[in-house]
């Protein structure tokens, strides 16, 4: 996100929403910091890269801090949404489109034309923007920077400085503050510093793949690729521990935490995509589409991604396993059988115990399950070593990487923040969010409790839901909100003017109350209203 225009830079309609002098000063400092990077991008060769990189990053940080302090500390603590829909950048106005286009172009270059950023061919020295980051890269991991190092640094800086801004914005709300400290910590430590330090441990005889420990399959769909698994196994105990951790994190840790706290433990407390969405993306949260049509599309798309990633990963692992059980117990067939067995087990449990909650969605679940099982059977009969079905596994994976990993999560996911809102990827594309959401809907203590009959249907909750959930539709009926897509950001409860919503973990019993409860009526009428 080198092109991080300050998201609050506005061409406001009412003059009262215009930036104050101090805010303009903050924006100016930040833009100058950014300008150093733009100059580097256009191959200005700064004499002292350490100095200029530090200058650039410090100015961006200081600019944002000056801006945020003036924007929020000059007002009393409370909801700060005044004029949101009047600000050009936050309401799909001119500046919103400009920012969207710039971000999108940046992502396209990052993913497909890294040499434009100055990435050197093998053996040569970096130039341009990537070269500007060489000193920091050498300091952290001992080697020159790559486009991903540049991206990782800017991403982390964005989460940190906009995290600071967000914490000022919600300084009256401890839930929001703690959550933000958490994403800032996980980004800085787990996504940025630890993998760089791990890279330092690598030598000719010992090598670990880049591993952001908080990235869990299926989000890091590449985790079980041959080169990674080989490299982890070859790295001895530490590598093996990493491999086991990767498996345990999706099959053991995730279900336990999601049961206890809902998927928010990951999506809005740990995840890097969520981290960026909640900090730099916060000024765009209200742009998510709340229509029922969008909800339908969301469910089809995101679950298709889950099916895709499951098949793709199965195919990839299948392709490099052997056939001879005497060499290694995990053969192609054993693997396929265990995948099919696990899926059948989960599917059976859901159908037996949770069919009612799923209602109509049960059919769709069954379709997804059926597709995967048929594909697995297909693999068994029609696949060789290089090919699974008619497809080259490499082709399968590279299409997934291109379509989902790059286009969806990067270009659309972040590039389109100012157009579709800050959680487009999380809502429509993230397979991890879908898996966690599936469990959250069916087997978790988390819910958003509605406070009796206090709802006045104002719609603040729905407007500011970044996942496009029509929260009001439930609240005005007195129903709790139990939705698979809810990431538990807590903003609906914060913006509610009447104290109607509360995120909490409570018992499973009575969690989904599809009754109109206690809207203030006498008991007889309530009984009748609830007879549908």
């Amino acid at each position, binding site marked *: 996100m080198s092109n991080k225009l300050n998201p609050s830079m506005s061409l406001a309609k009412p003059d009262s929403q215009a930036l104050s002098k101090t805010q303009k000063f903050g924006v100016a400092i930040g833009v100058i910091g950014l300008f150093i990077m733009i100059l580097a991008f256009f191959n200005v060769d700064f004499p002292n890269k350490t100095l200029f990189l530090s200058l650039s990053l410090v100015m961006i940080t200081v600019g944002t801090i000056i801006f945020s302090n003036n924007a929020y500390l000059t007002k009393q603590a409370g909801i700060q949404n005044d004029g949101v829909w009047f600000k050009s950048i936050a309401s799909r106005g001119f500046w919103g489109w400009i920012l969207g286009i710039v971000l999108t172009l940046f992502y396209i270059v990052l993913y497909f034309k890294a040499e434009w950023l100055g990435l050197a061919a093998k053996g040569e020295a970096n130039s341009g923007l990537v070269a500007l980051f060489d000193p920091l890269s050498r300091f952290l991991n001992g080697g020159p920077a790559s486009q991903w190092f540049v991206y990782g640094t800017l991403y982390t800086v964005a989460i940190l400085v906009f995290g600071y801004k967000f914490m000022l914005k919600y300084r009256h709300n*401890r839930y929001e503050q703690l959550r933000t400290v958490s994403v800032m910590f996980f980004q800085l430590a787990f996504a940025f510093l630890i993998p760089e330090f791990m890279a330092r441990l690598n030598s000719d005889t010992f090598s670990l793949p880049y591993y952001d420990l908080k990235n869990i399959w299926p989000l890091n769909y590449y985790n079980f690729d041959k080169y990674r698994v080989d490299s982890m196994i070859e790295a001895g105990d530490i590598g093996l521990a990493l491999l086991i951790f990767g498996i345990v994190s999706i099959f053991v840790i995730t279900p336990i935490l999601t049961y206890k706290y809902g998927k928010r433990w990951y999506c809005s407390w740990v995840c890097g995509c969520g981290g960026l969405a909640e900090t730099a993306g916060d000024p765009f949260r209200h742009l998510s589409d709340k229509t029922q049509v969008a909800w339908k599309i969301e469910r089809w798309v995101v679950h298709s991604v889950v099916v895709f990633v499951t098949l793709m990963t199965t195919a990839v692992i299948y392709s490099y396993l052997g056939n001879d059980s005497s060499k290694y117990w995990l053969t192609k067939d054993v693997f396929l059988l265990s995948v099919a067995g696990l899926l059948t087990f989960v599917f059976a449990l859901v159908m037996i115990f949770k069919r009612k909650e799923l209602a109509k969605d049960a059919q769709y679940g069954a379709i997804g399950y059926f597709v995967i099982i048929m594909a697995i059977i297909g693999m068994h009969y029609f696949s060789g070593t290089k090919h699974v079905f008619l497809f080259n596994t490499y082709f399968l994976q590279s299409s997934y990487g291109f379509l989902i990993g790059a286009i969806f999560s990067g270009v659309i996911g972040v590039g389109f923040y100012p157009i579709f809102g800050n959680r487009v990827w999380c809502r429509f594309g993230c397979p991890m969010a879908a898996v966690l959401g599936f469990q959250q809907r069916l087997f978790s203590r988390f819910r958003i409790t509605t*406070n009796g009959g*206090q709802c006045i249907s104002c719609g603040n909750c729905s407007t500011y839901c970044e996942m496009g959930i029509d929260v009001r539709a439930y609240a005005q009926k007195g129903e709790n909100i139990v939705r698979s897509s809810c990431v538990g950001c807590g903003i609906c409860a914060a913006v509610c*003017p009447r104290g109607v919503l509360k995120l909490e973990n409570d018992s499973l019993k009575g969690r989904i109350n599809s009754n109109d409860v206690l*809207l203030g*009526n006498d008991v007889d009428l309530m009984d009748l209203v609830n007879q549908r």
Partner: protein
Amino acid sequence: MEHIVIIGNGISGVTAARHIRKLSNHKITIISAETEHFFSRTALMYIYMGHMKYEHTKPYEDWFWKKNRINLIFGFVKNIETKSNTLYFENGDTLQYDKLIISTGSKSNKFGWKGQDLEGVLGLYSKQDVDLLETLAPNKEVCKHAVIVGGGLIGVELAEMLHTRKIPVTFLVREDHFWDNVLPVGDAKMISRHILSHGIDLRLKSNLKEIQSDDNGRVNAVIIEETGEVIKCNLVGLTPGVSPNIDMIKQTNIETDQGVLVNRFLETNIENVYAIGDCAQQREPIGHRKAIEAVWYTGRMMGETVAQTICGNKMKYNPGHWFNSAKFFNIEYQTYGWVFPEPKESNKHFHWKHEDDSKCITIEYEKNSNQFLGINTFGIRMKHDIFDRWLTEKRSADYVMEHLREANFDPEFYKTFESEILNSYSVQFKMI
């Protein structure tokens, strides 16, 4: 299949329509002259403040009405002929009904002040009012100063709205402290201080004498009754409450007083004509409730009740324990049960206020029996269903204070104050 016609597409009318649709196959028509589709009136302030756009205030998407076979007519009914079950529209159209529900809501009060109809004077109730406000007060350059008259919930909302555009506001309130005709003095004083802390020029014990105009018939000043002080302004918000919007009904055979008179079944004096929501007036007030209740949820409840009656299950309007909520700038307010500004005879108040002056509670209880009667809570969210149960179970004030933690509804990780409140309660109680 009968034709049910509903005049007014506010929360009561729409709730009635939705429940009639759930319960029956009747033909349903909703008429409104305000907006084409139902929106949440309580959210109007957020449009002007830029938190939401008009479309966000609509609780149902526009396709909802057709899908549920609820006809919408955008038009103004100018007369009702109850003998022939006919509605006459302003544009000359007519409409026959089998059953009629009047849910025309409220209109802003005006008390005959001089200048109350000048350009630049407005109330805050309808979509049109907010549109007008946007024109009259787009920013602080066009509207250099505003005066608000009437210290109720709408007045403080208007003050907050104008404040977001940095328009200086003078707020004339008749009472000794803001809203102390409803709130006990401790609560009212705290809210008064909070309003002042936002830079609002709150003038207590101040009445409006007259509104003055410039040569073009536009507002340019108000005069205060008590002091004779002249305050220059470009905008006057009149917010001394609302009353039933029934001018049209008054010329019909339907019996009215301040509102459309109804019995407990929400029936008017004319067969097959019902009135619900803000415009309905109970012939006998229910409990401590007012005969006319202009509250969001009572409109919803009346809508649900009348739907039962119309669909063959005759039912009394029978609201449960009183509750309500509001927000004064940054301070949220909830109330459960009855807390009067002065404790009723044989009752007492207990008041606790946090030192940061943004949180307080007041409870009312019966002196001898210690029975808990109601709570006002400011800055601390509390659970509706718990208090509803405690009121039904006639719990003692001691019990409620000791178990207050169970009723807390603040977000996770928030600091809690129950032990401090209980401490304060115990100390005060022993002193008595």
